């Protein structure tokens, strides 16, 4: 996993975390329009980045389309990624 891939994964993780936060908040505040706007904007960007990442580096979930051979099994698994050089 090279520097560029780690950076792109980290960017994806940041958007994913932002979505987790706004989703939890919206569960108890479903009528907060400002929070909903933030969530929807981040959601659109998250799915754009995720699609591009999977195209370049392989599947993050087992539902996507893979080249040959099936790339979902490729390493690293998340617990083996070396974030130390950040």
């Amino acid at each position, binding site marked *: 996993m090279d520097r560029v891939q780690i950076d792109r*994964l*980290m960017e*994806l*993780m940041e958007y*994913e*975390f932002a979505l*987790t*936060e706004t*989703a*939890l*908040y919206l*569960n*108890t*505040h*479903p009528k907060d329009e400002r929070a909903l706007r933030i969530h929807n904007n981040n959601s659109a960007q998250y799915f754009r980045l995720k699609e591009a990442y999977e195209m370049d580096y392989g*599947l*993050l*979930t*087992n*539902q996507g389309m893979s080249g040959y051979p099936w790339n*979902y099994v490729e390493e690293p*698994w*998340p*617990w083996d*990624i070396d*974030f*130390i050089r*950040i």
Partner: protein
Amino acid sequence: MWLYEKKLQYPVRVDTTNPTLAAMIIEQFGGADGELSAGLRYLSQRWTMPDKRVVATLNDIGTEELAHWEMIGTLVYRLTKDATIEQIKGTPFEAHYVNHGKSLYPHNAAGSPWTATYFNAKDDPIADLHEDMAAEEKARATYEWLINISDDPGVTDTLRFLRQREINHFQRFGESLMLMQDNNGCRKHY
């Protein structure tokens, strides 16, 4: 249902090999107030929770706890994966090693295996949400003590993130409790 994504919720960093610290962090993998207890508690309580917003909260926080459980497992794994026998001998991790090697296994820091008696589901929203709020604060306190004993900066960084999530979840459960108590026009009041 659940869908796995091949990524962690937060970039877990570990700077050293440290079996002693690993043996203490296992508290949050299989201890009473650990991430496994938290996840199964909230997910078990979903079916009988009467308010849809609170069901969503239990569902999503329960799911996030499983991602935290994965992060804790990653901390323990990375603190021990390069450890030699000499580095393991004489540390508290030695007792884990003779049974499990370097596998992850849910027990607490003192070695007691995880048990479902660590939580409850009462089919009572007030009882359940109070348990949930207490659980978040107990987990936060555990993270405080773990941060106090951590001598690995990467591990401390991850523990701080997890401590902050406990605070956030406590807030969401507090709001859930208020939603239950403020349900105007409902047939049933809590």
